[in-house]
């Protein structure tokens, strides 16, 4: 692997700025939902608690999915494969947990 910076490489157009308001709002909603889940009793509380945990797990994985989509648009196939391999690793872990 070269240690010199290659000036001929194209700059990625991925900025992800549209995600900024979504992540800001997800964080705010997650705080509110988590606070409600902490104090809400009974079955409603359980649904809210599971929802908060599901969001916390899903958002990082959705960000990877979005990156794969954008790399596909940039025709950066190496990183489409790398991103797919990452999701495959996580899916394999899920399968092992279910089967095991």
């Amino acid at each position, binding site marked *: 692997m070269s240690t010199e910076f290659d000036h001929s490489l194209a700059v990625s157009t991925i900025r992800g700025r549209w995600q900024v308001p979504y992540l800001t709002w997800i964080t705010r909603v997650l705080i509110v939902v988590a606070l409600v889940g902490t104090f809400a009793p009974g079955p409603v509380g*359980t649904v809210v608690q599971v929802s908060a945990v599901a969001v916390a797990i899903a958002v990082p994985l959705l960000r990877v999915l979005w990156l794969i989509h954008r790399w596909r648009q940039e025709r950066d196939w190496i990183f489409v494969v790398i*991103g797919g391999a990452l999701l495959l690793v*996580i899916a394999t872990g899920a399968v092992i947990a279910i089967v095991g």
Partner: protein
Amino acid sequence: MDVVGYAFMAAIAAGLGAMGGLGGAILLVPALVLTGMPTAQAAPLGLISVAAGSIAAGAQQLRDRTVNHRLGVATEIAASTGAVVGATLSGLVSDSALTYVLATVAALAALASFRKGRVHVALESSDIEVGERIGSLSGVIRTPVGIVPYVVQHLPIGLGLMTIAGLIAGTAGAPGGFIKTPATSEVMGVPPRVAASTTTFTVGVTAAAALVVFALDGRIDASISCAVIAGSLIGGRLGAGLQSRLPDQLLRRVLGVLLVCVAVVLVSRA
């Protein structure tokens, strides 16, 4: 302890962790263990805290354009593999062995908090466009001293360290950011700001990978997790707000000393 107590504990850990730049889980998991919770039960709660913190930090880092997503996802294959293996095996390991792992992790994190960063050379000219480069792990970042181009070096060693960080996350519930950030900046030659931001993005993915395994194994307590999410997000925000007003080096040293004490207490308890 009731759920409100867990929320307070998570808030304090996240606040201190954010001020020290290491994240809250590195303090939260040992604190939970010291209150009598089994390490196997505390680990997923630490990871929940990590995932929530990663989401909360995401917006600012996208604004600053400091995350190298290609580098993050590439190295995350190694870290997530480690996390999945660690989470799967953690159910088979004794609790005292997990506590020893946690004590080692706390001691290593203490060492990381005392380290000094590598200095990168900035270019005078600013005609190079900032951002990642398509088809490669290299990129360019704007810093207060100028434009800094970087190329990833020693990738195999970096991937090895990421795997270790993932194993630690999966077994002990500590995010492994204290390994990932120095590995990315010191070993792989990436500017510290990019390394820190990329790590914050990737620790969320590592946590999610291990949490999928924990969730499907039925090892996540939703009510305590919810309290931890609330506490971590609120404490993390307060800690990040206070961080800029307090001396950075002093904070890191105080956190380092605190982690050494935590490691000693954990070993004595194990």
